[in-house]
């Protein structure tokens, strides 16, 4: 018999209790993976959409609560483009809108001839030839059943689908790309854009990007300039979403720890006499504590692994078959999944510490008298 056999047999003694506690841990780990995975997915979709367009610096309104809530004069784009070190500048108007089928989508308005149109990877059709034509992200085209030549109603106005684009970002996949003017009219922001995308010459390093950001921030104090890699980190809405995801997950883990603590306290109390036997045959307090800790850790490791599987599957289902598909690009790294499994192990150790210390507190002579 190996040492680990003892806690395994203890867990097998009460299979229903073990399974229910393991399930509690699994739900906590799955919620951690799903909620944090969603938050990260949203951030990834946002930053990937910027990367798709080759944006290095995002220029938005200073003081706006959120990038998407601000407005910038579209005339700023050509001025910024003249700055040494800036290769291209293009204004972009972004609006959230609902389609006639109820699905929420993003509408992005771009100036005709803007370099942003070049970032679209057309798989069908062509770029818009006039203000009445749009390009659809591939997911959006699939969900609306649209193909080039069809008509799509956006904010009460009909547009002709000129082409369909396949981009890496989930956000771009669910976006309708329109010419700037009609979108400005539809949202009542004539002459305004949500932000300006700055592209720097190819091969520009992060140090140069940061230096130019600083330089432009000083030159245009009414504007907020952020390097692309900072955009998601400094976005307040994403920050709130991220904090809520971690907060909710932490709560689930705390509740789960209490489950484990309760189970282990019961388990140890039921086995007071057996712990007395182990002491009587010469097991040291350290060995007994190790046995109880190992029992809790094994319980939570099992639950944690099930939770990882549930979380990955749940996130996949959530982002494949719901509206979230338009905005979220689920990305679960091995490191994050490992962290989730390790958190389950720590949860097991934490929930077993007190029962383990209780297990060795009683003298063997008293423990052996317990029924």
């Amino acid at each position, binding site marked *: 018999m190996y040492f680990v056999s003892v806690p395994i047999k203890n867990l097998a003694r009460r299979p229903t209790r073990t399974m229910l506690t393991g399930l509690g841990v699994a739900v906590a780990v799955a919620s951690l993976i799903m909620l944090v995975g969603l938050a990260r997915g949203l951030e990834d979709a946002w930053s990937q959409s910027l990367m798709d367009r080759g944006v290095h610096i995002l220029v938005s309104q200073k003081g706006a609560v959120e990038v998407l809530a601000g407005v910038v004069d579209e005339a700023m784009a050509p001025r910024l483009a003249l700055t040494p070190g800036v290769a291209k500048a293009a204004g972009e108007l972004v609006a959230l809108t609902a389609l006639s089928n109820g699905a929420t989508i993003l509408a992005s308005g771009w100036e005709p001839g803007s370099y942003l149109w070049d970032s679209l990877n057309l798989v069908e059709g062509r770029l818009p030839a006039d203000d009445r034509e749009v390009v659809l992200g591939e997911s959006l085209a699939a969900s609306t059943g649209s193909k080039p030549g069809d008509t799509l109603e956006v904010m009460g106005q009909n547009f002709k689908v000129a082409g369909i684009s396949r981009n890496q970002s989930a956000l771009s996949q669910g976006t309708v790309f329109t010419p700037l003017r009609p979108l400005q009219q539809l949202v009542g922001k004539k002459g305004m854009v949500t932000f300006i995308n700055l592209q720097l010459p190819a091969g520009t390093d992060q140090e140069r990007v940061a230096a130019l950001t600083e330089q432009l921030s000083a030159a245009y104090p009414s504007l907020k300039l952020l390097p692309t890699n900072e955009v998601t980190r400094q976005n307040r809405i994403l920050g709130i979403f991220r904090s809520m995801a971690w907060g909710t997950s932490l709560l689930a883990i705390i509740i789960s720890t209490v489950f484990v603590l309760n189970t282990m306290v019961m388990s140890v109390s039921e086995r007071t006499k057996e712990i007395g036997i182990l002491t009587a045959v*010469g097991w*040291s307090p350290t060995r007994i504590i190790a046995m109880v800790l190992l029992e809790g850790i094994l319980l939570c490791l099992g639950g944690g692994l099930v939770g990882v599987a549930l979380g990955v599957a749940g996130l996949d289902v959530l982002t494949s078959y719901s509206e979230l598909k338009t905005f979220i690009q689920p990305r679960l790294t091995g490191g994050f999944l490992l962290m989730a499994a390790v958190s389950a192990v720590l949860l097991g150790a934490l929930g077993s510490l007190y029962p383990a210390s209780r297990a060795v507190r009683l003298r063997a002579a008293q423990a052996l008298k317990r029924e």
Partner: protein
Amino acid sequence: MKAAPQQAFPGSSALLELTAVSRHFSDGLVRAVDGVDLEIESGSWVTITGPSGSGKSTLLSLISGLDLPTSGEVRFRGRSMNSLREWTRVRQACIGLVFQAFHLVPTLTAAENVELPMFGNGFKQALRRQLAHQLLDRVGMSHVAQRSPGELSGGELQRVAIARALVNSPHLILADEPTGNLDSRNSEQIIGLLKELYFEQDCTVVMVTHDPVISRWGDHRVCMRDGKMSAQIHCSLDDPCTL
């Protein structure tokens, strides 16, 4: 006749020495053991007798370090034993315990129960298993090695418990009413087995018993009454104790 015991420490053959040992409960209202002085020589067979509630089992708990005295001193091989942790080490290395209620772990098989005392002495798993099976074979229980305690009879349980007590080749075997839950036939067999092992293993046996027949056997008999030692009779194995 048993060979002369090895000396426990230079200049003395005492394995255990109890000096004015008391164990009180409920703030001194219950004096389970009260001022007992006792010396147990290495290689001896000692029986502790007395009526129920006289303090025999409590005394055995103090001798085995399952409990600590309220006052007084217990010395094992000349060393004063003051902590439960120290007793645990001594029990693991030198003491085998046999209980009236057998005290086997119900989730483990007979062989696994016998393996339990070997955790901590550095034996590999294969060696632990081999030794457990050897000991079960020695007590005639090799056929129940893979059975759980719930599937064994009282006599079988006690034999497995004896195998467990012997697995680390202890210098001292402490038995608390080992036949208390057995019928007369099984009782005789268990005592017979303990006697065989006593002669084979060159160890010391301290046994608590109610049974007047069993208590006559041995070379040192201690009688307890109301927590005190009421009589201490020295005899020889050739000339058993009689009161």
